[in-house]
């Protein structure tokens, strides 16, 4: 019969997560992209109508004359600005990805216990380790990959709309908007950022899965209230001056890490962002510095990053252990 290997079983389990969460993983980014494109198209139509009503027409020849004066430096600046625009355009998709994966992880080891379908999955020859890891992979690799797909759809749609709009006015925008090297470099960066984000998000993923495997009811309350209440107590003790731990540090490095690390690219160094701001630097250069391979490697080598990965793996191991023990506890 068909060969069944541990890795083929694992892929089936990831596929199962996709079946269950197709709406959140695939349709959410695709629909956000399509809605945004519809708004952009409406904006272009409005702009066109307003321009006509006001009596000034965009004249292709004038624009061409304009662009003929653009030198290489201006062109690079334009490309940089376009990159910044294309990247920030994906923001709603990234925010949605955070929300979707956060609630996915909270329910991943809880919902099937609540509806008892866990008994069906446990009646199959699947190890708990593989089951939990397939959920980690679905949340940290598959969902972000589909979000990147959504962002690419959005970027291409945007570029096509503007190219068509320009063509309507007799302008050939291809050389300005469509730079294959820029686009491909950007998409490669998107792909590289998926595993970087995944490693950074491990503490949050681990914590949410742990709560999901542990809670007998209301995993959301446990996952959010436990760290927040702890933080409030520590802040209060600091105010009472009976405790030397700096509460701001705790909020940022413990609570922030276990609850918010799923936010895409939240590992970037906010300090360096501030200094760039003050320097009044070109945003495109700031952005490319922030996401340069050197900067990524730097962040990954930081204690914050490494300790987070270790803590995340430990919590995932605990979630696997709980998954094995806690079958009887129904909601």
């Amino acid at each position, binding site marked *: 019969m068909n060969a069944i290997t541990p890795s083929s079983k694992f892929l089936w389990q990831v596929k199962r997560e996709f079946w269950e969460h197709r709406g959140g993983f695939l349709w959410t980014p695709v629909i956000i992209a399509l809605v945004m494109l519809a708004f952009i198209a409406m904006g272009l139509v409005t702009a066109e109508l307003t321009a006509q009503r006001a009596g000034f027409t965009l004249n292709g020849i004038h624009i061409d004359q304009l662009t003929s004066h653009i030198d290489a430096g201006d062109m690079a600046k334009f490309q940089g600005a376009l990159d910044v625009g294309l990247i920030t355009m994906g923001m709603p998709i990234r925010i949605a990805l955070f929300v979707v994966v956060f609630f996915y992880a909270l329910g991943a080891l809880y919902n099937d216990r609540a509806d008892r379908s866990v*008994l069906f999955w446990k009646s*199959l020859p*699947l190890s708990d380790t593989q089951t939990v890891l397939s959920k980690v992979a679905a949340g940290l690799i598959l969902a972000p990959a589909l979000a990147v797909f959504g962002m690419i759809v959005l970027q291409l749609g945007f570029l096509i709309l503007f190219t068509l709009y320009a063509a309507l006015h007799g302008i050939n925008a291809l050389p300005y908007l469509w730079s294959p090297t820029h686009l491909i470099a950007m998409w490669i960066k998107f792909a590289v950022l998926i595993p970087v984000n995944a490693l950074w998000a491990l503490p949050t993923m681990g914590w949410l899965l742990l709560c999901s495997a542990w809670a007998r009811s209301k995993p959301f309350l446990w996952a959010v209230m436990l760290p927040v209440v702890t933080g409030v107590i520590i802040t209060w003790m600091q105010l009472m001056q009976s405790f030397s731990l700096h509460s701001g540090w705790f909020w940022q490095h413990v609570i922030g890490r276990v609850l918010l690390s799923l936010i895409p690219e939240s590992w970037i160094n906010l300090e360096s962002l501030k200094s760039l701001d003050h320097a009044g630097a070109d945003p495109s250069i700031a952005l490319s510095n922030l996401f340069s391979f050197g900067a990524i490697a730097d962040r990954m080598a930081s204690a914050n990053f490494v300790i987070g990965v270790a803590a995340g793996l430990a919590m995932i191991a605990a979630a696997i252990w709980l998954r094995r023990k806690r079958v009887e506890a129904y909601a």
Partner: protein
Amino acid sequence: MTAVVQAKGLSKRYGNTAALDNVSFDIEAGRIVGLVGPNGAGKTTALKAILGLAEFDGSLSVLGLDPRTHRTQLMEQVCFIADVAVLPRWLRVGDAVDFVGGVHPRFSREKCEKLLARTKIKPTQRVRELSKGMIVQLHLALVMAIDAKLLILDEPTLGLDILYRKEFYNNLLSDYFDEQKTILVTTHQIEEIEHILTDLLFIKEGKIVLDATMDDVGERFAEVMVNPDKADAARALKPLYERQIFGKSIFLFDGIDKSRLAELGELHKPSVADLFVATMKGTYA
């Protein structure tokens, strides 16, 4: 014959109550065993122990494996249907077949599709669109397509109408069961399955109170309908249970010579349900 399940000194406590109290039993290959007991007697706990879904004390070997440490391996040989409606509601029928085929080495896709073709279930339907009876049909089709050695059924027909219940057990007997397979079933609808059982295990308050083959049951137990004048003589033989019907007394005896009982009145073979009521009397008192 080799034992498929060997339990020795099985114990499990929930707080102060013992769900299983030093239970020992063997289940031989090729048998259909009814595990019968009132609510809360420990049936489900015993099944969970066998399936490696619950911790327990004592020793338990299922197909030569310890379910606590070799669950994944064990589940290649053991199937179970626990209660109704444990199939996830979002799952599509076709995906369910693909998935089980993808992860189970002993699953036959052809057999599953053949079984599903007999029902009204369509591959594009989701579980939530199916009726309770159809969900059980789907689950049974998935499980029957797996060539497992041990099938565990925990109230598999709960909440189904009689047509589905009859069909369920008919399918199981005609298309699944053979001497290589063993079935362990719990149900409260004991009258409906007593003719298919080969063995009985009665469990009461965490203890096994009857462990016998159906043949033994016919030998050991007898029911006698006694006229009032002989009732005292019957009571002297220490019946397990006594009930009244149409002014006569019906006594249930364990291990009393049939010829002696025949002198008292009309002999019957007791039904498993009567035996159950007799054995479990006082459970809820």
